[in-house]
């Protein structure tokens, strides 16, 4: 069965003055059509880097990428810059973490959106710029599209907002504009990089609700990166939990929340303040140094259940059931070989 996006054995290393940073190690992620997938992890675990590698925007000079990223049968890692233009914004879209910083500060919402729609797929845009810009029919069409999309994302006074500059917008409004811009190309896959982290809790809820309604309306897949398990629970069907560049547990959201298995997942759940008022407990230690990651399981130094074998060997994935896989020696795998 072909997946919409299939990341296979992805390895991303970076060159640095101190040596090679092994940031992403052997990551496998599958996203089906019309599926919302969450990628959970903390700062520095490599999740944002994975998103950037899907879009092909990692710095070419310092990054070393191995593996495959297969989107609708095409390996994105082999594409040239030119070919990539057919994918960015059209097949695969992106919404960023800091909405206000991601809009051009010197153009109004209308101007940015219009230029995006007019020139998205045009090659040699700089030659055709004035021709396209002055084409009245196309302009009117474009304005209609813009107004429709802005209404779609729940912006109350579209006429006012269109003429505003980004510094006049609030975080929530800016994020809605960005979502509209991302979806205007009718992508099949939306990459969301912690889009609600910088927002207030009430706005966060509104954006999540908005995404949910847009997903059911337009049927696109989402790869949602976040460190907030609560948000992931509200939005995703399937989650991957990532630690220090490796996937440690994955499966359907229901399964994982009902029956979390990996010690890191337990640690995360315990560390979140809950409305029940139960005590929170932090995870000992800190994320490993990517220059010299621990040889066996990367979570070993912080794991309260660590065994000797965890120090030496990397655990492989154990199938718990159809919807649940975990990579930990607690559940087997040590007898192999």
């Amino acid at each position, binding site marked *: 069965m072909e997946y919409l996006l299939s990341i296979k054995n992805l390895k991303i290393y970076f060159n640095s003055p101190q040596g090679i940073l092994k940031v992403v190690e052997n990551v496998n992620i599958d996203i089906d059509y019309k599926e919302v997938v969450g990628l959970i992890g903390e700062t520095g675990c490599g999740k944002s880097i994975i998103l950037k590698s899907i879009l092909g925007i990692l710095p070419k000079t310092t990054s070393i990428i191995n593996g495959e990223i297969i989107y609708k049968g095409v390996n994105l890692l082999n594409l040239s810059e030119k070919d990539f233009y057919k994918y960015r914004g059209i097949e695969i879209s992106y919404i960023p973490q800091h909405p206000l910083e991601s809009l051009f500060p010197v153009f109004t919402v209308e101007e940015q959106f219009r230029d995006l729609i007019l020139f998205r797929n045009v090659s040699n845009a700089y030659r055709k710029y004035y021709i396209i810009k002055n084409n009245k029919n196309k302009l009117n069409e474009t304005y209609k599209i813009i107004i429709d999309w802005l209404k779609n994302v729940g912006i109350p006074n579209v006429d006012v907002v269109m003429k505003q500059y980004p510094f006049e917008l609030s975080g929530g409004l800016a994020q809605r504009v960005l979502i509209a811009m991302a979806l205007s190309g009718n992508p099949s896959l939306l990459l969301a990089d912690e889009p609600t982290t910088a927002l207030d809790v009430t706005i966060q809820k509104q954006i999540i609700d908005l995404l949910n309604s847009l997903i059911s309306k337009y049927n696109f897949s989402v790869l949602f990166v976040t460190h907030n398990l609560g948000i992931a629970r*509200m939005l995703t069907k399937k989650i991957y939990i990532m630690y220090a560049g490796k996937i440690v547990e994955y499966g359907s959201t229901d399964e994982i929340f009902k029956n979390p298995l990996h010690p890191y997942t337990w640690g995360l759940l315990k560390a979140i*303040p809950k409305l029940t008022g139960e005590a929170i407990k932090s995870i000992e230690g800190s994320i490993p140094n990517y220059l010299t990651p621990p040889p066996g399981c990367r979570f070993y130094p912080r794991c309260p259940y660590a065994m000797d074998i965890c120090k030496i060997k990397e655990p492989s994935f154990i199938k718990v059931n159809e919807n649940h896989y975990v990579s930990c020696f607690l559940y087997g795998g040590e007898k192999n070989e």
Partner: protein
Amino acid sequence: MKITMYPVFFMEVKKMNEILLKVDKLKVYFTISSGMFIKQKYFLKAVDDISFNIYKNEIFAIVGESGSGKTTVAKSILGIYKVTSGNIFLEGENIVNFKNRKLLARKIQYLYQDPSSSLDPRKKVLDILMEPILVHKLYNKVDAKKIIENYLELVKLPPSSYLNKYIINLSGGEKQRIAIVRLLLLKPKLIILDEPTASLDVSVQAKILELLLDIKNKYDLTYILITHDLSLVKNLANRILVLYLGKIMEIAENNELFLNPLHPYTIMLLSSIPVVTDEELKYIKKRIETIGEIQQLTQVPSGCVFHPRCPYAMEICKNEDPPLIKINENHFVKCHLFKNNF
């Protein structure tokens, strides 16, 4: 693996302890003068008539969205913003617009949300921590180093490796711990925590919170916790003040607020929490739909400032600012809905 329980004292706090900080009808207005020739002055009412007490050793939470005025209240207490009217009593003494900075620094301190911006990135840990000691001439050189090392060990940053590190090389959690040590050196009585964990990861958050509770007990501290995370508030706070556009919406004791939230804004905040477990859903007693965004201070609505977003808004809400109504000893709410029942 130790499991520590942090019991939260409720009524006992109020009865047994004295009032550490009393804020009385605090108003902080910023004047904006616009116009080229005829300067029109108008006021941004960042904090509009707020009164509350803080008891010794309690954790008092101020919650609300960004722009509600939480940080303004905090910084007015510290004397950074000029108070337009009202009084602030610290242990009986009126500290409104207090001139003696150094004295106040020994009593009240402030922990910033983002440790990357609150610590000078070009300095070494040692320099940062020596600053309060030098400013207040607390110890001589030898003692100072020892004391700093003790504190660093307390926050689990081994002094031998951390003293000479540059701030720019530390992680968020480490920086926040250094910031905490910096203000502990002054042995303050009251610490204002401004979203202490908002810019940190989940696992790091828990560590910092554990640390904060640890030192609260150890050094006999009182906290004002500013946040918009109600789950955190449930876990930590004794009493909670809900602010919106500079006005009190509701002020109640912890259990009381979660068992019986009255103000629609409070209920809206509760409804927005992304819960992690199904169990927590039972703790959200009421729900309303989350709509709208907080207005700018330049466009404060008339009457009850929350009325544009309130699903229960009545005619009177648009015109009249509601009074603060006492529901019981531990619960006050500012809303027309409850005027006639109590």
